[in-house]
């Protein structure tokens, strides 16, 4: 008797789609940007020395008790409203019990059968402008765990000699948003997953309840994937890929899991219900641990906390504070910026609306903001395997670069280099331009000399230009750029050539 087959080569995505329909379930954790933690007055801050943003409550010392952060509750209600959820009249916290060294009390205070928000939906705009509605099951409040570092071995958990725990993150307020099963996504499932997480990120950013920086884990996604044979209605066994922490990774992880499931199922095997880990380097997932008895979390209502009762008055007050819904905002921005439909869609697909808006609000023209975010910043981010927003380019930097170009001090090409040097920590664009001597050669002496040299070396081109083929000037610009190490202004070169030949520009 052979064991059930649980592993096989993944099918291609096209083959998988030909045979199966995917069902998704997405759990997104949002870390709130409150000043203090969910249940204690310790600071909610990122990047400080280990175990310095903790107090007796975060360390789970004996005799300590939790007290709920009002701001976190209000943030949760606002998010619930933005996700078109019903807000519970009464809700409670519960203890989710499991032993793990990053969990100081050996339970996580969460919400179980009484989430603060439930039964919502989010209309997600896809790359081609189509709208897909994702139904939301619930959004509930909970606390984050501490951070483990594994020492020895490979630095990964398996094979580590020991682990170190920093509780700075312990108790940071989280909201977990759980979708209902997403059925009918078909081949667009990975795109829908990415667009959904992107939309959640836009919303929490718009609500200003989270820094929403995925690379810092402010927004994290667990992706549940299962397949059912085409035309079937009964869901298959699902896998849960944990902590997929970038928009691209969400799309890739869902794609990979669909292919993997399809491979196993097509080979006659069965899917193990388990958690899986996303591996960015190979764009694959690896087996975590199977669901087992140890998952008996023994939830019960947290007796150290009292229920939260939401009055209509309170909810309406918070509703009045909500920013404009993202869909309306998109409509407004499209009009205000005057982009072509395709341009605007690309911006939305790239998830760069907020960045561009912020840049425009800071004084850049919409065209300049789009050019930088969709162009060089995205390219550099891609090269560094980061989200564009994660590069840390500020609107001020973009405006400064644009200003330098407008003033004729640098050209586009140099500006791109300046940005890269800026990201490498060389200072502001102005500082880089002057420190590296990158200013465009516009003093006529040096430039004229370079032009004269180019003209002397390319008499055939000069002849063409003199003969009226003005376009041929382009062939002179290359050598001039070479001579000036790229710091020549193309317009200026053209002017000088024409002047030399006595042609009216």
């Amino acid at each position, binding site marked *: 008797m052979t064991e059930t087959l649980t592993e096989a080569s993944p099918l291609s995505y096209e083959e998988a789609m030909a045979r199966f329909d995917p069902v998704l379930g997405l759990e997104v954790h949002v870390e709130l940007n409150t000043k203090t933690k969910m249940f204690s007055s310790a600071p909610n801050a990122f990047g400080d020395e280990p175990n310095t943003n903790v107090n007796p409550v975060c360390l*789970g*010392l004996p*005799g300590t*008790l939790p007290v709920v952060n009002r701001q976190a509750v209000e943030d949760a209600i606002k998010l619930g409203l933005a996700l078109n959820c019903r807000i519970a009249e009464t809700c409670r916290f519960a203890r989710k*019990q499991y032993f793990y060294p990053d969990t100081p009390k050996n339970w996580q205070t969460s919400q179980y059968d009484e989430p603060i928000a439930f039964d919502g939906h989010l209309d997600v705009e896809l790359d081609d402008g189509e709208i897909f509605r994702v139904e939301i099951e619930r959004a509930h409040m909970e606390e984050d765990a501490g951070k483990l570092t594994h020492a020895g071995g490979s630095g990964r958990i398996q094979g580590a000699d020991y682990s170190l725990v920093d509780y700075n993150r312990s108790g940071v307020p989280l909201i977990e948003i759980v979708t209902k099963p997403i059925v009918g996504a078909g081949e667009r499932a990975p795109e829908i997953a990415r667009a959904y997480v992107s939309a959640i990120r836009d919303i929490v950013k718009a609500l200003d309840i989270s820094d929403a920086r995925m690379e810092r884990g402010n927004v994290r996604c667990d992706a549940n994937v299962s397949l059912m044979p085409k035309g079937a209605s009964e869901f298959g066994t699902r896998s849960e890929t944990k902590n997929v922490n970038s928009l691209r990774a969400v799309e890739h992880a869902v794609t990979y899991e669909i292919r993997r499931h399809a491979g196993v199922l097509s080979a006659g095997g069965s899917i193990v219900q388990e958690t899986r880990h996303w591996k960015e380097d190979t764009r694959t997932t690896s087996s975590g641990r199977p669901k087992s008895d140890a998952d*008996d979390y*023994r939830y*019960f209502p947290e*007796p150290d906390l*009292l229920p939260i009762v939401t009055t209509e008055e309170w909810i309406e007050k918070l509703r009045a504070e909500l920013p404009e819904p993202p869909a309306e905002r998109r409509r407004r921005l499209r009009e205000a910026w005057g982009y072509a439909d395709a341009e605007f869609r690309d911006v939305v697909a790239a998830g760069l609306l907020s960045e561009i808006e912020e840049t425009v609000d800071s004084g850049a023209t919409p065209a300049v903001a789009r050019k930088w975010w969709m162009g060089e910043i995205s390219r550099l981010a891609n090269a560094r395997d980061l989200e564009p927003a994660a590069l840390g380019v500020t609107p001020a930097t973009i405006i400064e670069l644009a200003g330098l170009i407008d003033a004729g001090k640098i050209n586009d090409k140099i500006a791109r280099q300046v940005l890269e040097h800026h990201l490498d920590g060389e200072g502001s664009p102005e500082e880089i331009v002057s420190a590296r001597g990158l200013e465009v050669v516009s003093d006529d002496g040096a430039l004229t000399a370079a032009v004269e040299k180019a003209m002397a070396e390319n008499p055939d081109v000069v002849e063409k230009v003199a003969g009226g083929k003005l376009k041929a000037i382009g062939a002179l610009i290359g050598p001039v750029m070479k001579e000036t190490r790229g710091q020549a202004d193309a317009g200026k070169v053209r002017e000088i050539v024409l002047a030399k030949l006595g042609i009216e520009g």
Partner: protein
Amino acid sequence: MTGTVGTKPTYGSVSRYGAIAMASSLDQIGPVARTTEDAALLHALIAGHDPKDSTSLTDEVPDFAQAARRVDVTGLKVGVIRQLQGEGYQQGVLARFQEALDALREAGAEIVEVDCPSFEHALSAYYLIMPSEASSNLARYDGVRYGHRVLPEDGPLTIERVMGATRAAGFGDEVKRRIVLGTYALSAGYYDAYYGSAQKVRTLIQQDFEAAFEQADVLISPTSPTVAFRLGEKLDDPLAMYLNDVATIPANLAGVPGISVPGGLADDAPAASCRWASSSSRPPVRTPGSTTPVRPWSVCSPPTPNRCGPRSPSWPPSPPSRPRLQESEDTYD
């Protein structure tokens, strides 16, 4: 059982912040003292709102000592709980209890009987809720952040096994029993039948108290069905040990305040009776009123027998040379 005055304040009256938690929804800190007045003075010192405890009451702390000194119980309706007497109660305990009632009657109080049918299930509910919450509250003692860490004697050194060895070494038998029982009561498939049902019993007990306080100003019962058992006597029979809590548990589940006052000896050991007061001045509205905890104090004063007098020279009584405590007329004022 110990011949001392023991106070159980209204749930939320004394902050639990800093107290090592057993069962969060039951835990309440109260003074144990020689006299009611001492207990009242201490109670006044430790009571009051604490923003670090979400379950802390915001009411003003009443003048407990004043209430403890009050002697007049004329016209006070004292309710005897039908379910907390009779079968299972030691003869001597019941006799001392009757004497306490007589003393109250003589001092002008009116004794009535009240019916609290759900109290029958209080012990079961308590021994599900308490271990459940304790199993959770004690989970933090794992040797990671503080306290003892014990390494397993053999086998691989993993965190799971170190936690297991640490907790095996650090907890005593009764604690382990409660943790395992609580883990069971909360586990999947049993929650509704056990913890869930126990929480419903809790509702019924609260309703019984509310109904009883419609008929009486304070309630009274023996503190425990028997006097103290000998050291180690019931270690092998935890259930028998648990049964001794039967009289105090209903108030614990309902958060109702009470005070246990020594009431003479039964079979050479101290017996006591408990007085319970409503934690709400106006049931069933259940808004904790600022004056309510005063009630149990007012009936602990002189007219009630306090025969294990605090001024007894050889206090506290300790075997084997336990003195025959005299039935004195000693009072506290």
